């Protein structure tokens, strides 16, 4: 049969997706244990989610939560750091630690035959870290050195300046890594106290997934964690939705000077909305049309039409509290002004002059819904998905209602969301680049004189 190249082949029937079953248990100490069976490969993973991240850093102590989580694998229980990592190596273990604004997540994957050992090691790291002085000194030094190195990384500078301008002293106003000043004066006692006050079974969720039965996974977690208890009653963690937001900054546009930079690193945006917004799904559709995939307006304009950049994107950074909405791109220095101007045009146009078309809506909704199954391929993906449910208090039927909710969104809803959630009056523009090349053009944008940021 010859190929008909006069038209694209029609899609077949949408394949049904069987959502993985997540079983939920609670241990007597309050620890939530969620299990997922996934038998494709002989691996297991244990993900520990603590809804305590960099936003929990005490005032004047940016970087404390991150260094506390970084110290967890520097020795625990009977093992010093080297012995711990020797053991991890022997079970084929992969340890991943990440800290964001809202959460600390530790994931340990290993060969399935070592599930109990892996889970026990994870428990020791979380509940019995050694926190020794010499390790603290070293880890702090490494983090200070990392801060030094980030001075040369344009994207890091841009993120930092943008975050700082938007959020100031708000708990989201600093990077998890913290600042030199804070790290320099931090003590091991503070780290220990932070761990003691924040890490508790009643606050933690373990997602255990992989090549084992639900019962076996629960048994592994139970054996490893049931002895963990907290002596004193813990106060509830603050609800980030209730944190007051700072007013829009006076600086509408700011430059971080980087002499002879080959590109300008751009950030344009403002504070957005929390993950729990009822408009979450419509914002996903809006964003995928505006700047959330290759064929989005921003990328097609700045990259495919103009050739100003290797790629441009937008995102609503959904967090427990209101995270930022931001457009990001790294553009050729010579066309910085044109790029900012085009970006601002697109951000404004989708609110009214050029509202979302039905074709765009169709593409955006389809990309989100038809592509949904591939989020459930590996045990790690499923664990991460489950962790999102736990972190944002999402309903149990969240996965199975995703597709119908997205498909129910129409053009009017997207345009309304654009009007409501993208607010040009509040935009802050940050440019990390060569001031000599970009300042003259930028002054023509009618955004006022750019503020120059030096100490960020």
């Amino acid at each position: 049969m010859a190929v008909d190249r006069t038209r694209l082949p029609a899609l077949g029937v949408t394949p049904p997706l069987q959502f993985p079953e997540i079983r939920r248990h609670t241990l007597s100490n309050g620890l939530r244990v969620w299990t997922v069976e996934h038998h494709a490969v002989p691996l297991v993973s244990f993900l520990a989610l603590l809804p305590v991240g960099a936003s929990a850093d005490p005032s004047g102590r940016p970087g404390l939560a991150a260094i506390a989580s970084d110290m967890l694998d520097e020795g625990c229980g009977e093992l010093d750091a080297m012995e711990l990592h020797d053991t991890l190596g022997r079970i084929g273990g992969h340890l991943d630690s990440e800290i964001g604004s809202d959460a600390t997540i530790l994931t340990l994957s290993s060969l399935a035959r070592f599930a109990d050992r892996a889970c026990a090691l994870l428990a020791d790291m979380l509940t019995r870290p050694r926190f020794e002085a010499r390790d603290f000194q070293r880890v702090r030094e490494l983090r200070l050195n990392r801060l030094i190195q980030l001075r040369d990384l344009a994207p890091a500078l841009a993120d930092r300046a943008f975050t700082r301008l938007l959020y100031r002293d708000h708990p989201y106003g600093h990077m998890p890594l913290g600042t030199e000043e804070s790290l320099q004066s931090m003590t091991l006692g503070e780290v220990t106290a932070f761990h003691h006050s924040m890490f508790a079974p009643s606050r933690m969720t373990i997602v255990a997934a992989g090549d084992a039965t639900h019962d076996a996974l629960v048994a592994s977690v139970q054996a490893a964690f049931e002895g963990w208890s907290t002596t004193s009653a813990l106060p509830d963690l603050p609800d980030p939705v209730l944190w007051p937001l700072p007013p829009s900054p006076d600086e509408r546009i700011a430059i971080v000077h980087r002499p002879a930079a080959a590109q300008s690193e751009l950030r344009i945006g403002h504070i957005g909305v929390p993950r729990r917004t009822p408009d979450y799904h419509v914002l996903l559709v809006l964003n995928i049309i505006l700047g959330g995939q290759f064929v989005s307006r921003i990328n097609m304009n700045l990259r495919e039409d103009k050739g100003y950049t290797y790629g441009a994107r937008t995102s609503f950074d959904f967090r427990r509290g209101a995270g930022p909405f931001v457009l990001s791109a790294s553009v050729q220095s010579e066309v910085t002004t044109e790029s900012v101007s085009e970006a601002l045009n697109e951000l404004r146009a989708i609110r009214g002059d050029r509202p979302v078309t039905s074709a765009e809506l169709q593409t955006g909704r389809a990309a989100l819904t038809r592509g949904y199954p591939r989020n459930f391929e590996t045990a790690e993906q499923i664990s991460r998905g489950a962790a999102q449910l736990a972190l944002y208090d999402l309903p149990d039927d969240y996965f199975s209602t995703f597709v119908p909710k997205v498909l129910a969104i129409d053009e009017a809803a997207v345009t309304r969301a654009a009007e409501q959630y993208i607010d040009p009056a509040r935009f802050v523009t940050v440019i990390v680049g060569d001031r000599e090349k970009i300042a003259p053009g930028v002054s023509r944008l009618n955004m006022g004189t750019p503020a120059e940021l030096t100490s960020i």
Partner: protein
Amino acid sequence: MNIPYTRQTLDNGLDVLIHEDHGCPIVAVNLWYHVGSKNETPGRTGFAHLFEHLMFEGSKHYDKGYFHPLQEAGALLNGSTNADRTNYWEVVPTNALELALWMESDRMGYLLPALTDAKFENQREVVLNERRQNYENRPYGFAGMAVMAALYPEDHPYHWMTIGAAEDIRAAHIDDVRAFFQTYYRPRNASLALAGDIDAGEAMELAARYFGELDAGDEPPPVLPPAVAPVTVERRLFFEDRVELPRLYISWHSPSIFATDDAELDLVAEILASGKTSRLYRTLVYEERMATEVAASQSSRELGGYFQIIVTAAPGRTLTELAQAISDAIETLVVEGPTVPEMDRCQAQAEANFIFRLQTVGGFGGKSDQLNAYNTFVGDPGFFGRDLDRYRRVTAAAMQQVAREWLRPEQRVLLSVVPKGRGTLALAGSQPVEVS
């Protein structure tokens, strides 16, 4: 452990490999062309990668961009170019398999009628911006170029990096695109792998229908690289960069991909610098606090490999002391060999790494990509198990032997990258190199 597959070579020479995995209702379409920057010539560098970009700009029967219909079908897609090969992939829900095959086969067969000056000029700018973003505007971004230029003679295609020289990219011509396409983008120079929730027989039929009609074309010309003179006298180079901390790159020639000693050196890299218990991390970062980070890798390619150690000095520490400490660590390994715990760890990690590679059907490094890699480089898509065996067979004595043979002090190239105006922080006797 293996990636089971069925294989058929179409009459036009295209290899089709099918792997069934019914875990998730998706299918990976993965297409390798056996062409990369090693098929370029001096003065025309960066072209294979620029060409890859043009493959996403539309083809004769669908000339409105490659991404749109696929993203609308729920696809994730991308492509990449390295020295040896160019790959393209889509991960689609199973009901879009035919669409993906239509699109891939259309650009394999009918790219040129849709090619325009405007597309070409646009993507040339995009690639120049990719180069600015990933190399020119990035700390230490030029180091790879300096190392490759030092390891290989000017007329060897590994002398340059895949991104190429900016002036060459600017000088590229649209006629070169036509010639390149006709020479290399042929079924006989490609390998197609489909992996996922499909029936092997049906998928094979679809692949044959969409790709079978394409003209086989001529055999591409072989790459005939000039001989590479071994490094016999240590070379020391440096350049100044917009960085805060000096960094040292130590590089040696090493075996080609899948050649004798390749797996052994891979595990040598592992025990030297992978994880906290590795020798260099433990000494330089953990105990002595001389370095902020250290990495080692055996990068093996078709025409030859390179073994590399990268170390960044902690503030106030010198590259000289780091170089000495690394020399000492290698010397100790050569004299004493790996320990039993090291062997246990690196073997367990190797096994785990292979299993981790079996988790996804598509994307970079997924099962479909691996089938094509094995097919392209060894001629055996089923090489996965034998590849793992290479690692299982590695002995402590063999690692000691390859470290002695390949990591000799007189055979290394030492590149210091130091902060602007601080050339004195480079290793003594380093010659400046021009990078841009």
